[in-house]
């Protein structure tokens, strides 16, 4: 039983059950209606119930099959820095975009996410970011005319 906690299907099934239950409960706050005149809550309610059933089935198949050799939930190497950088890149885009405009947003987005690679250097990432900034602003601002000021002071 202890090995259960190492199984992917255990968590996968559990996640789907919880999601299904949450959806089904939430749907009842909208009106369900009748089968003939369905309310907005009916369809998501049905989906939520189905998701719970599928979740139970996944959970059950996890219980029945033995642990596969080498099965592990987390990847072999934990790339915390890379993951953080990849998620932070677009967030930087939002932050610097709102405050300073497209040029700063582009530069920071590429710069921060490039730092996620294990071999990345500050200089190399900055060069890449500068290159993408030049190309990107040309493409999106001049050619495609995306309404996003190149520079702004958003305070």
């Amino acid at each position: 039983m202890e090995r259960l906690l190492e199984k992917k299907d255990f968590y996968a099934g559990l996640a789907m059950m919880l999601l299904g239950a949450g959806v089904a409960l939430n749907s009842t706050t909208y009106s369900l209606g009748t089968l003939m005149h369905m309310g907005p809550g009916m369809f998501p309610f049905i989906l939520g119930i189905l998701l719970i059933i599928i979740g139970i089935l996944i959970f059950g198949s996890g219980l029945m099959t033995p642990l596969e050799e080498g099965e592990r939930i987390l990847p072999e190497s934990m790339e915390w820095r890379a993951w953080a950088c990849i998620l932070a890149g677009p967030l930087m885009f939002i932050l610097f975009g709102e405050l300073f405009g497209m040029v700063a947003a582009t530069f920071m987005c590429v710069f921060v996410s490039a730092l996620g690679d294990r071999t990345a250097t500050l200089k190399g990432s900055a060069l890449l970011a500068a290159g993408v900034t030049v190309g990107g602003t040309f493409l999106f601002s001049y050619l495609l005319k995306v309404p996003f000021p190149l520079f702004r002071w958003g305070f």
Partner: protein
Amino acid sequence: MLATALSDLWYGFGVALEPQNLMWCFVGVLVGNMVGVLPGMGPLATISILLPLTFGIKPVGAILMLSGVFYGAQYGGAICSILLNLPCHPPHAVTCLDGYPLTLQGRGGAALGVTVISSFVGASWGITEMIFLAPLLVRVALQFGPAEICSLMLLGLLAGSTLARGSPLKGVAMTLVGLLLGIVGTDIETGTPRFTFGIPSLFDGVELVGLALGLFGIAEFMKSVNQFSDVNMRYSKVGIRDLRPSRDELRRSIPAMFRGTLVGSLCSLIPGTGPTIASFISYAAEKKFSKTPEKFGTGMIEGVACPEAATHSSVQGDFIPTMSLGIPGDAVMALILGALMIQGIVPGPRLISEHADIFWGLVASFWIGNIILVVLNVPMIGLWVKLLMIPYKYLYPSALFFVAIGVYSTNNDMFQVGETVAIGLVGYLLLLLDFHPAPILLGFVLGPRFEENFRRALLISRGDILVFVEHPISAFFLLLCVVLILAQIYVRLRKPKARAIADEKPHGLGQLIPGGSEAE
């Protein structure tokens, strides 16, 4: 029938050869070919990145370009498999088996040459099939009422989620998640906002571009980052002269090509079995058919020609249900259908008659695009091979910028960039639990229409749920659903056999396929 088909096709060529459309088609296949070659970038991520850029183009041009990316990427993917033994594009994973040994023997160029020929043969057949089959399907589909549409969509969703890679149960779970995501936003019939949590940006629903870029962009980058070791380029010097296969190689590969085409076109008729499955099945079939099956895996040219032809004929065939019924078979088709819907075009059986320019223009552009691809690939092969050397550490940060600006430019809304990051994180967690995100997109795109037809069918039947079984066509689709589920259970119970097929996968494929959940 032949005469109308030919005159429609003639009209299509007129549309596709308009300078604007020709240009978009060219851009599409060029970009597709490029990302196909690049390890770690797939057609799904690329199409989603390009999607927001197409809002300003006319619908025909937009669809020609996005489709071009899809089939263009198939040409490029083969280069990566044959020269580097990197199965980064699932449909070409089997090509590694015999393609890379050929490269080691110094016949990599010939293998690429054969690939180009078989791709063209496969694609041509797929297009021909589309010309004749799509209008036929439409004639049947126009009779469908809401109940039939509903059952057909159910069949499409079920096939799309259970026949693709991974556990069928998890595929169904992802489809349900996709359907739920499709519900987010204002209910069309009653105006009630559903699952919006009071956030105004969600009242219009989850943005297709954001969903696709989160799942196939950000989640995919998180999976692939730092996973690429330096690639071995030693054998990758290929010039235009090397592409010519020897007479013997050609003689052996031509029949294999036709067999592959046949398998591919059969696979494309079953929703959910995209190019990946077609290429695996055709390789297995070719091995069975061969007089020297033991030699497969050591550099048999047939083992390259057959799966490549199958891939391409099935890629083109994939468009048939998408365009004629409005039911996509996989995630790429779901995206292309989504692109049509963003342009204000209602998918379904009426598309071909109401938007003849789109349909016939697309068909004609396939041929033009495939010819462009042959022209691009033969003289410029050296350049494509050089592209293989672009390291992933430069690729993904640049791609992230395109993700961010692409999502922003759909509605000029920064909230959606944040939404995409959140979807990406959840998508990565799902990947860790062996959920493949492709069916999410399928469910998301079909969801609203599915719900609408479901409600309408029950309204017409006065709430009688048996309506789905009482209509014979609908009952037939539901029967197919049951057969599909039973077949899955049967396969599960006979596991050893399924394992045998899994063993056909090239060495190392099981470990990690960067971009592995890309287009099936």
